């Protein structure tokens, strides 16, 4: 094997490793996020329900279409999710004062507890995950990941 084919082979191997690392990290984060719901404030909720609560916002009163756009789901899908969350006491629905046809959605205190508990989980997870990186490694990691994410966002 000559020099350039050795390099090509090493590069191919590294990319396969990165592919495994990306998929593995993605799956681990999903699993850890699921496990994090097992506490007294979020018990019984699915991760999709928690992400709906996050999209509604801590102290916001948003029209349904705004929340649907944040989640990239249809209005019908969001309506089903919000009905369920309202029945469980996490979400309130009100009519807009300037346009009674418009439904606004906001969090109850119970919903705000879920959002704050979820934010807390994310803060703790990222602090622990990056604890072994030096400042320089963290900066390089952030720059490289931002570039990779931009590609995935453009494909999604």
């Amino acid at each position, binding site marked *: 094997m000559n020099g350039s084919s050795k390099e090509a082979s090493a590069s191919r191997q590294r990319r396969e490793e990165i592919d495994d690392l990306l998929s593995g990290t993605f799956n681990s984060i999903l699993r850890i996020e699921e496990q994090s719901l097992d506490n*007294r*404030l979020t018990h019984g909720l699915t991760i999709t329900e928690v992400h709906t609560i996050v999209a509604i916002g*801590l*102290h916001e009163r948003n029209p349904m279409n705004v929340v649907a756009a944040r989640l990239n789901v249809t209005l019908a899908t969001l309506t089903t999710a919000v009905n369920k969350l309202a029945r469980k006491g996490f979400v309130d629905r009100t009519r807009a004062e300037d346009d009674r046809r418009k439904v606004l959605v906001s969090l109850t205190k119970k919903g705000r*507890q879920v959002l*704050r*508990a979820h934010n*807390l989980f994310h803060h*703790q997870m990222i602090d622990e995950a990056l604890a072994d990186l030096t400042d320089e490694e963290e900066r390089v990691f952030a720059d490289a990941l931002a570039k990779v994410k931009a590609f995935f966002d453009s494909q999604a």
Partner: protein
Amino acid sequence: MATIDTVKEVLVENLDLEADKVTEDATLESLGVDSLDMVELICDLEEKCEVEFGEPEGIETIGQLVAHIDSLK
């Protein structure tokens, strides 16, 4: 009601703490307030004090908690 009294009231109600122990100098850690207790405490205080708490870092004592809430009023 003074903010410190509201904080006392919520902590006594939520965590069954003795009101006398909830002083300005007491740390949240010494009172046994963990991070999930803190989430509940913040949401209750937002409602009772009619403030939006935000996500401040470095609150370690009851006095700092009271000062933060008062700064939002």
